């Protein structure tokens, strides 16, 4: 399988988009750390950029790459290779390249300027979000035969996770503000990997003190060992579930 992934990786590196992405992340994080005196303020800005840009790039890049390498997939299917292996090699190749872009582009500046617990939380969240959204993009592109449909579906998912979902949550919280919703908000945060990541990073920062009673409850939960376990578990679920669904669909697909 590593052999196949190697060819996928080779193909990606040649297109240079991933290099541009690395540079973009590197310049953004470096300039943020340069501009702000206080590194924790810079971290907050960086977090917001990461939580929006990272899922978008992962989704769009993966979908486009999947459709562009359709010929490669077709060729491999006439060889004695299982479909699962072909798809998982594609996944490994893409996620590895996106992951290394993130770890170089953001990891190096963070390690340099803010090598703290918050920095680690940020790198952890960024890495898992990359994997999660690559996985979701695979699910979208395997389902849709048409390129435009696949990319559209991926973008719609991005809108959902970054904007629509938060809107729905706010709506619920406002409409039922008379009831105790703390436990409930804890639960629904797990249904969106971006929110989960945001909470996970924020609680490592000082700003969590400003979040009131809910913030205190969050801190109580996510600050504990079970909270960490919960976050990691939910993130793993978010990575494996879409990927598993994609593999299942891909196995039955007519090429």
């Amino acid at each position: 399988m590593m052999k196949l992934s190697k060819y996928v990786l080779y193909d990606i590196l040649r297109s240079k988009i991933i290099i541009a992405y690395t540079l973009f992340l590197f310049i953004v994080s470096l300039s943020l750390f340069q501009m702000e005196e206080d590194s924790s303020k810079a971290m907050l800005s960086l977090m917001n950029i990461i939580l929006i840009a990272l899922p978008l790039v992962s989704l769009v890049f993966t979908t486009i790459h999947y459709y562009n390498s359709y010929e490669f997939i077709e060729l491999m299917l006439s060889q004695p290779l299982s479909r699962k292996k072909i798809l998982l090699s594609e996944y490994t190749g893409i996620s590895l390249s996106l992951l290394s872009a993130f770890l170089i582009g953001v990891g190096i500046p963070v390690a340099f300027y803010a090598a703290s617990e918050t920095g680690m939380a940020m790198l952890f969240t960024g890495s898992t979000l990359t994997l999660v959204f690559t996985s979701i993009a695979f699910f979208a592109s395997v389902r849709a035969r048409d390129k435009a449909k696949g990319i559209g579906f991926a973008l719609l998912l991005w809108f959902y996770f970054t904007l629509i979902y938060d809107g729905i949550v706010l709506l619920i919280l406002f409409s039922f503000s008379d009831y105790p919703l703390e436990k409930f908000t804890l639960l629904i945060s797990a249904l969106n990997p971006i929110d989960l990541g945001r909470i996970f990073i924020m609680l490592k920062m000082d700003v969590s003190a400003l979040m009131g009673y809910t913030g205190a409850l969050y801190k109580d939960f996510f600050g504990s060992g079970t909270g960490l376990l919960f976050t990691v578990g939910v993130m793993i679920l978010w990575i494996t579930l879409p990927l598993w669904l994609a593999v299942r669909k891909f196995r039955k697909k007519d090429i």
Partner: protein
Amino acid sequence: MIRIENITKRFKKLKALDNISASFEKGQVISLIGPNGSGKTTLIKSILGMVKPDSGKIFFKEEYINGGFIYRKDIGYMPQIGRYPDNMKIGQLFNMLKNIRNEPPETIDNELIKEYDLCSMYEKPMRTLSGGTRQKVSAAIAFLFNPSVLILDEPTAGLDPLSSEVLKEKILQEKNKGKLILITSHILSDLDELTTHVMYLQEGKMQFLKNIETLREDTGEIKLAKAIARVMKGEDPAGNFISEVLTKKTK
């Protein structure tokens, strides 16, 4: 070597394959013939596992291919339209395939690469290739690992007469080695000298699968093209063809 049992495949409303059963043996060259959209490519892709039939079973060397993949080691496939990674160069493509397959070097058959002089184009990226050169690459890949079954989907379409002759010569040579070869083509004159059996498909149904000699006798035509033309016009009752298929199946 390959046995197909009651294969049916639907693409939404269209019935691409309708309850097809057949059996192909070693040393045969089967010509898959039929009008456009009669299900030839779908049948080939089902054998390769690229299209999943709705019902029915396919056996390869007496083994039921149930979504398996190892059996494809023994199949060389030349697609109708060869599509390859755009950024890859010809040389890289061959090297990649050899690397992935990891077969011992003595089994590799480079003859077509030499005959078509593809070595001199090793540095050309795939996206710059003409349709004919692409076809040559496809052919060379199909024969590369010396497989015991060759599936060629319109192999001579787009090839110049000389290259087409080279390919036919190669097919004949492999046939004499006792391999099973499945060919679809609309250029029936190309098939004349190669084929041992003719399988005729129409609207997803198999009309007949018969020996070329029998077909010639039945239609009274020597040329395959004329014999098929007669069949297509419906001058021959299909009944005796089907009965032959049935006796084959019970055997």
